[in-house]
């Protein structure tokens, strides 16, 4: 995979895919976007998804019994406390997949799918694969 756009275009090949984005959640910056955005504005979608992702990645209730990563084993310190966030909306699915690179900016893939056409399990597996290859290849 050569870059952000190739990754997003590959995500868009999933059945029911409507839009995809790569977002830095601390700043709300959309690093790349393809396809549609709910409401038509990719910037707003990125900022709102970033806020949601931040909640999932930082709130103790989601980050597990061990507490934040800092309190765990040193080898585990960079491991993600939360890997995916799935939102099942009335008409669509939103999948957020955090990137595993030891990256202080915090980046996630966001895929918006049509609920009538999408296969949630397949999409989730493909997103994991994409997020992994994004930083390895």
């Amino acid at each position, binding site marked *: *995979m*050569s*870059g*952000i756009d*190739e*990754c997003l275009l590959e995500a868009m090949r999933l059945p029911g895919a409507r839009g995809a984005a*790569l977002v*830095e959640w*601390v*700043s*709300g*910056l959309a*690093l*790349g976007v393809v396809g549609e955005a709910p409401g038509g504005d990719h*910037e707003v979608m990125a*900022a709102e998804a970033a806020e949601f992702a931040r909640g999932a990645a*930082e*709130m103790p209730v989601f980050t597990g019994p061990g507490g*934040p*990563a*800092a309190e765990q084993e040193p080898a585990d310190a960079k491991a993600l406390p939360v890997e995916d966030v799935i939102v099942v909306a009335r008409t669509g699915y939103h999948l957020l997949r955090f*990137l595993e*690179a*030891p*990256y*202080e*900016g*915090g*980046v996630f893939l966001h895929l918006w799918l049509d609920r009538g056409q999408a296969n949630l399990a397949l999409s989730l597996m493909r997103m994991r694969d994409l997020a992994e290859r*994004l*930083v*390895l*290849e």
Partner: protein
Amino acid sequence: MSPHVPSMLVRLAERGATGALIRDTGALYLADGAVVHAESPAAPGIDVLLTADGRLPSEQWREAMDAAGPHCRIARYLLDHGRLSGAELEIRHLSALYDAAYFVLAPDGGPSRFRHGAVHWFGRVRPVGVADVERESRRRRRYLTDLWPHAHLDAVPPVRRRHAARLPPVPRRQQDVLDLADGRHTPALIAAKLGRPAFHTLVDIRRLAASGHLETRTSPPPGPGHAEAAGPGAVAAGAPRGAAVRRLPFPFPDTAEDVDVVVLRRLRDALEAHL
């Protein structure tokens, strides 16, 4: 943003200019009218951001600098030698670019001049439109204001609040910033120490001030007469948490929500000097 900078950038973009837009707050590099890099004294450089968290060992960075720096092709070198994937290089470079650009395009960034033909040594990764960079910088400014509308916090060393120990704990990222909030480290210095984009540190500082962990009405940098009290030697290593706070007493009542602290403090110093 000063009114002439956007129009100047738009003109340069329309002309497909190549070179560097230089201001007091940093530089924006254009190639064929698109933004290819940005750097600012207020933001850690791409070298810091790539090496700080160990993603790229310093030796590998130095090796890339030596081999490809003189040809302004470091990005290409890192890719060709498999140091980073194409996507990761784009992610990290864009993050650094927008981070520095935010400071370069600051409303009070001073006059701008353009150095035609200047090329940045990192090399081209993923050029961004001038309009995108300006829009993102404006969005970031609004974002900080929405979090906690106290822009002076972006420049002064953050100070912990005395009774913050009773507050609920903060997420790890914010705790890292809080640990360095000793009244001496500026936000830029904290970002450099943590190897994080500077804007991210500003976000954390605004959040920490909003939640009451940091002082919102922090003292300005020490002026004459305060140098001793707030000087680096005044805060001993391992001093209790409240020590730095006590040394920087805030002389104004809590009700003064919107006063310009710096002006007031200078005024007081000037009055005292005449007593």
